[in-house]
């Protein structure tokens, strides 16, 4: 009798357990994506690039939109952050900072393909040196890792460190 009951309840128990686990897992990855951007992109980039700041000129409209986007991001509304960044891109389509922020938003939304593309774009038209370059490559590294490109990810991390060497332009 006792055994029967346990057999009967086993599936419920298991499904409950699975639900519980998946709930935990879900929560963890959501905040993980968010933490990942801080711990693996922004913090090391700003630490490593002390003194090497190459910031493009920004107009006040773009600054306002970037600030709003950061606000939306902080409150977890990545969709709205992306909308605001897209507005900023309409004003300055080739501003590497906006593109990199977009890449970081995509990272947090776990759209790694888009994160990769925006970060590469930011690097292509950005200064290719200093903090933003570092963030570019760190984003690329994280995105590649999630996309299963382990080797590419390690390479990108190496590139991030190279951002601190101001290499001579070859003509």
């Amino acid at each position, binding site marked *: 009798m006792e055994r029967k009951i346990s057999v009967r309840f086993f599936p419920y128990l298991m499904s409950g357990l699975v639900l519980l686990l998946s709930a935990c897992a879900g929560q963890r990855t959501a905040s993980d994506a968010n933490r990942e951007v801080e711990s693996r992109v922004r913090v090391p980039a700003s630490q490593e690039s002390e003194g090497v700041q190459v910031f493009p000129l920004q*107009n*006040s*409209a773009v600054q306002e939109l970037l600030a709003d986007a950061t606000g939306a991001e902080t409150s977890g509304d990545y969709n*709205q952050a992306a909308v605001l960044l897209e*507005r900023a891109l309409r*004003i300055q*389509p080739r501003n590497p900072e906006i593109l990199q922020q977009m890449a970081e938003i995509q990272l947090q939304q776990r759209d790694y393909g888009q994160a990769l593309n925006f970060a590469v774009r930011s690097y292509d*038209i950005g200064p290719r040196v200093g903090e933003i370059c570092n963030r570019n490559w760190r984003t690329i590294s994280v995105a590649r890792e999630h996309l299963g490109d382990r080797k590419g990810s390690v390479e990108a991390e190496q590139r991030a460190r190279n951002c601190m060497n101001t290499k001579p332009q070859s*003509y």
Partner: protein
Amino acid sequence: MSPVGRTFSLMSKGRKKITGKKRSTGKRAARKKTASQKNAVRRTRSRKKTGGGWIGRIWRLALLVAGICLGFLLPWVTYLNHQVTTEFEGRKWDIPSRVYARALELYPGASLTLKDLEIELSVAGYRRKTNAGRPGIYRVAGNTVEIYRRAFRFPDGAEDALRFSVRLQSGKVVSLRDVESATPLDLVRLEPAEIAAIYPLLKEDRTLVKIKDVPPLLLTGLQAVEDRNFKHHPGVDIKGIARAALANLKAGRAVQGGSTLTQQLVKNYFLTDERSVARKVNEAIMALLLEYHYDKSEILEAYLNEVFLGQQGAYAVHGFGRASLYYFDRPLEQLEAQHIALLIGLVRGASYYNPRRHSERALKRRNQVLSAFETTGLLSAAQARTAAASPLDVTEQPRSRGTRYPDFVDLVRRQLAQVYREEDLKTEGLSIFTTLAPTDQEKAQRAVSQGLKSLYDRGLSASLQAAMVLADTDSGEIRALVGDRDASRAGFNRALDARRQIGSVIKPLVYLLALEYEADYNLLTRIEDRPLSLKQPDGSLWTPANYDHVSHGEVTLLEALTRSYNQATVRLGLNIGISHLLRKLEQLGVRVDVQAVPSVFLGAVELTPLEVTQIYQSLAAGGYSVPLRAVIAVQTADGDELVRYPLRMMSLAHREAIGVLNYAMTQVVEQGTAKALPGLLGKQLVIAGKTGTTNDRRDSWFVGYTRQRIAVVWVGEDDNRPARVTGSNAAMRLWAGLFRELSIESLDLRLPDGASWLWVDRDNGKLTGEHCPAAIQLPFVDGSGPAQLSDCLARTRDEEEESFWRKWFGKKN
């Protein structure tokens, strides 16, 4: 169906569900009621039975009649009840979807002329006055424009009305200012222009209002004029009927209606216009039933949205929300007493009292309504007097309802058709936010119509047709689209549907493929421009000739591309392979179904102007492919985001080769087949371009891009007959006509990682020094640069080496 489509249909189902429960309880209640009526009848009979014989006979007769009536009436009432409840609860007006242009962002530094700003404002329905005292008005004073922007629900959030001023100088916004608080602003959006509405089949136009948003005076005033007893009557107002009957009797004809608001609604809703006793009876029963089942406020809200208040062309204006926009160009909540009175007056006869056509009648009627407001105490005598003394205030013309830019809207419909059923677009009251820039669109239309006219003046056919697509390179957002020489004509949309051979417009892709083989090719690699004959699949020989019927011998890749040499291109293409070219087209976002024959290298591929734009967008953006978009977001009638088409990009491989190619394409304009372009533009800028001409000069193409804009133009005859057009004599002229009017910047020729600028000797292609004779700077994919040094550079290097040694060891000098 896509996930988006699914949510969409779920939502419309969900809306109906809410009322399902209510209906069944209503029916039950109705059944109960008829049962109790029966009981009442039985009770009466038992009481009267004590009466005499003839009374009994009469009674039996009456009973018979009553029985017949009941037997007939009961199912009839049940039927009507069913009709009323299902119709009313499932009521869902077909609301047209509205299509909006992009919202113009204003910020210090933005490129904008006063003329363009005024076009934007006028397309958005703003009127220029001497005082910008209320939303929808602007005022110009010197180079400052004061705009009272209406409140608007943008796709990313609602914004209140805002009175602000813009100062313009030499084609730029200098500053923005909030007029009320007198503080500077960094960023303001204009209200986007409504460029089209997608209407239901039933030609009704409507803007839904909720009863809580309606000005109180409209609610009370409507009752004061149409149905004073509305609050209390059960759907039919006996006193009202009596009053009307008396008046009609006196006049000898029907002059007054005793209809309650409920009856009017029922009539509009369920019945035809036929005047008969039967209809009147039905109307009364249904009105009673409606009142029995529903709140007064629900009935009133339905009435407010249902009543007919005007006619705009083929479309009937229904409801106060739409009428307010139609007559005053203001939302309902901004109306004043005299405006509300005018609209209420129209209930009696919208065409008879049409204020645009019969202003005196309308004024008289409005003032009657105002005095009714006064007698019922809704307005004080003073208020009524002021209101009656004010002008009608109706705008001269309603905001245009028709589609302004049919070709662009056609593209919008098609993009949405991938997600929605056409029926939903016509009925769900969606707000569709698009990428169209009205000023750019107006300029594109003018460039096409005036361009074709001047081609005619130059001796070309009067029946030439054209298409033009203008997009932002980095976002892929389509700013303008023209598909006919007469842009107001909605018909064959050549920008989307004219599939024509693209001729030399394909060539840059052949050269791009070559540049991707950095070991074999750079821009200075020499290839042969000599006659050749190729056997085609059908056995015939194909011997391509150059445009000038001259073979140029050994030429560089750069020369062959900029001068568009056919023989050199086919030879180069054969080395690369047709399949590579076809695959490249697919990578760039275009699906082609074409036989792999060598004539493909010369553009024997049929594409539409939109597809050509898609191909070149990726190149113009430096190797980032973005799907061209016309729609950014779609909102439901309640303001929820239904779908968004965000910016998504795909980075292409070999971006370094694309960087090199972009330079080569600027040389097409600098010294090649498009070298007349700077003259036509009247500007010296770095522009990339490519001309295209097809066999027998049937098609003329031009693709050109600057830093932020790309446009593709096609010119030819609809029936594909020879048209004596070439890329540079027709399409390029139209392109120049557009870009002359746009604010443009030089193309950004910065190379991505993996390509670099090198100094080379113009004459022999050897690596050289900046200071050397004949030195020019050219872009090279890394690893493709010339191996040999020019004599000058070799000498310099020797000297440098020598000086190095001297510096360290040769102190004796």
